[in-house]
């Protein structure tokens, strides 16, 4: 199979071959598809139902975010980063602010760090809820989607009360937070945690031991730890393959070293393990939130940052553990008010490379399950 151009694929046929002889079928899971989590085009080379190879065509959601960054000041670019991984906008903002703060050599005050951790972990819960609902929907279970979005609704209400927007939060600023925790913030977050933990048990009861779910996800899309490291895959996918690597423990940022939590690790690297790892991460995030809410210190929420941000010339790479993997920002500053280059390392983009390896030899129905388990967001893949 050769590529004509970006949009056409040709199968080389022998001279006397007819339509009935060929065993390969090119199937296009096109950009408009109920299960590709955005505008992703996957061209499958099939032998009957078995997948022989895949080719991902991306770029349908490319908006030129990195180019926009070169024409905005550092503070002005902050709202744009939310739009990349739009299911977990707070993480994007945190990564960017940490990167610029590192360039400026300032650190956010402790109270701001705690508020940042609470919001980032809530945002991790929200992102995993989207993953849970859509992944279950792809595999055929219709109801976990609604249960997951019910809980996500509560989180988004907290975001709305805190920073004024549900999805594109723009919650943090360079140097700390601009919004003080509102009246009743701690109580609401604690109430949410208390209401949410039984719901995790509800999801487990609905799916974890369900024989149909287990049959659909066990042994599907296996990726070994070594392959993950070779491909650069990070996040829950890496941890489910047996590699215990979490940036919150390995390179702590924003005060994560003050909290006590576990890193769930899987054994086989199949879809079922990735499911179990993410469900365990839900529980660990609730644990972190409870500790953070219990121990918020008093104090200022914004560090001393000049009104016009002009970092010294240099470059910095800061990465955080976003819900989908390692989200990194590489910022090159030339001493002016606008960055010279902002390069975002999106976790979904790198994880999507693993799709081909995971899906070879499996059936078409498994492709949908594997795309769901990689938890990709096209806003991040294409930027």
């Amino acid at each position, binding site marked *: 199979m050769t590529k004509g151009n970006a949009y056409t694929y040709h199968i080389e046929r022998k001279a006397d071959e007819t339509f009935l002889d060929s065993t390969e079928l090119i199937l296009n899971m096109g950009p408009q598809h109920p299960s590709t989590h955005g505008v992703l085009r996957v061209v499958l080379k099939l032998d009957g139902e078995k997948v022989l190879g895949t080719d991902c065509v991306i770029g349908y959601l490319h908006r030129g975010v990195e180019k926009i960054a070169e024409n905005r000041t550092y503070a002005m670019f902050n709202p744009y980063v939310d739009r990349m991984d739009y299911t977990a906008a707070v993480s994007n903002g945190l990564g960017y602010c940490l990167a610029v703060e590192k360039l400026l050599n300032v650190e956010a005050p402790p109270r701001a760090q705690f508020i940042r951790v609470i919001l980032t972990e809530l945002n991790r819960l929200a992102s995993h809820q989207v993953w849970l609902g859509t992944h279950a929907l792809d595999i055929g279970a219709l109801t976990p989607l609604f249960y997951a979005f019910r809980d996500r609704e509560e989180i988004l209400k907290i975001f709305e009360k805190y920073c004024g927007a549900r999805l594109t939060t723009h919650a943090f600023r360079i140097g700390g937070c601009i919004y003080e925790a509102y009246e009743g913030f701690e109580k609401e977050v604690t109430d949410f945690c208390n209401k949410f933990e039984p719901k995790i048990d509800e999801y487990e009861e609905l799916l974890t031991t369900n024989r*149909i779910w287990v049959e659909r996800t066990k042994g599907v899309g296996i990726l070994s730890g070594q392959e993950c490291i070779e491909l650069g895959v990070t996040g829950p996918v890496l941890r489910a393959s047996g590699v215990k690597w979490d940036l919150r423990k390995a390179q702590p940022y924003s005060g994560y070293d003050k909290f006590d939590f576990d890193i769930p690790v899987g054994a086989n690297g199949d879809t079922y393990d990735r499911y179990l790892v993410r469900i365990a991460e839900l529980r660990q995030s609730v644990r972190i939130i409870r500790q953070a809410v219990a121990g918020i210190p008093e104090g200022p929420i914004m560090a001393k940052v000049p009104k016009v941000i002009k970092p010294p010339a240099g470059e910095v790479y800061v990465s955080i553990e976003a819900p989908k993997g390692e989200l990194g920002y590489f910022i090159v500053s030339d001493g002016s008010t606008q960055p010279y280059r902002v390069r975002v390392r999106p976790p979904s983009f790198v994880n999507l490379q693993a799709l081909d390896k995971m899906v070879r030899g499996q*059936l078409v129905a498994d492709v949908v399950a594997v795309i769901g388990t990689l938890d990709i967001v096209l806003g991040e893949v294409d930027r």
Partner: protein
Amino acid sequence: MLEYLRSYMSQPVTPGEAGNFLWATIYILLVVAGVSLAVLFMNWAERKALAHMQIRLGPMRVGPHGLLQPIADAVKLLTKEDIVPVGADKLVFYLAPVLVVITAWTVFLVVPFGPTYAVTDMNIGILFMLGVSSLGVLGIVMAGWASNSHYPLLGSLRSSAQMVSYEVAMGLAIVSAVMMTALDGHGLYGVAANHLETSGTLSMIGIVNSQAEQGTWFIFKFFPLGLIAFVVFAIAMIAETNRAPFDLPEAESELVAGFHTEYSGFRWSLFFLAEYSAMVAVSSIAVTLWLGGWLRPFASVHGPQITIPGYWQGGALDFAFSLLPALTFFLLAGFCFIGFVRMPKLPALRLQTLGLGAFGAVLALVALFLLVPAVRDRVQPIYWFVVKVSVFMYLYIWYRGTFPRYRFDQLMKVGWKVLLPIAIGVLVATAVLGVAL
């Protein structure tokens, strides 16, 4: 005229058997209307029940609580543009939905709603039902082929392979139930003293009558064999009708819509009608064979049930049970009344509130009508049959709301490697027990 009606009412056989064409036609029209009404109601019930399981409300705007939604859907489908794909085989394209609907409705010729409430009672009733519902597979293959597009073709081939595989397990489960009709004993493990004098029957009314004579529903007979056969049939019937968790041929996430992708408007609604009618049909098979058909729970036996008034001349318990249909309708009217009271008092909703109140009043009138003794005694069998089939319909919706989908190879594995051996095992065990006991 009244004499003619009254003389008809005490007939001991179904109109088909009596050779009475007029009444047979009237029954056929009643059955078709009833099944269509059931499909309409099932559309509303599925959307509401599935929505409530998914913690949302479902249709609320069209009529009060969405009661007019099926009518709105029907009107929309009838007025849609009829698209025939380029290159489609026109004759086959037109015929496929018609074939599926005809087979789905022909099955209802032998379904008994009461001791003589069937269009006809063939002596091969259950075999006829199984055979005609198998013809529906042909309609699906025709639909996939005629669409001239590879998604429907794949979907129809998968669907037909699935239906054919699960029919084998269905058939074996049915055989083990039919074997129990030959027993003529009494109680859960009873068999007649002299087996050779009794004979089993394939006729649907005969199967229910033998359950009445043996004093137990076949689901409890030779416990747990009847139960296992019932469970095998229950799983196979879900796969037969392409419903969750066996609905891969229709799964949106993989094949858009399977064999009916290219059908739009009225033709699609024919497929929809056929699918839900098939669901009602296989549920009626399950109800008739294992759950005692039109018999009420703890039915008392007064000899062979031929004359209707005679059957229901029982004691206080019979009288109490005979009030149940009216009570059910009063309960439904009560729900309407509660909804009426709880509607928000907004001018925009005035018409809906009135509609709900009127609907509740109509239900209450039906309940009062069901208290009239002449009607009350005759409606019992129909009521119990409908209640049991409704339970199955609710189970269908419940399964759709709960379970993920099986992948196609896993689906075939369940059909051939799990259900078939179990069905054969139950068949052999029933036969052995029937002879040995």
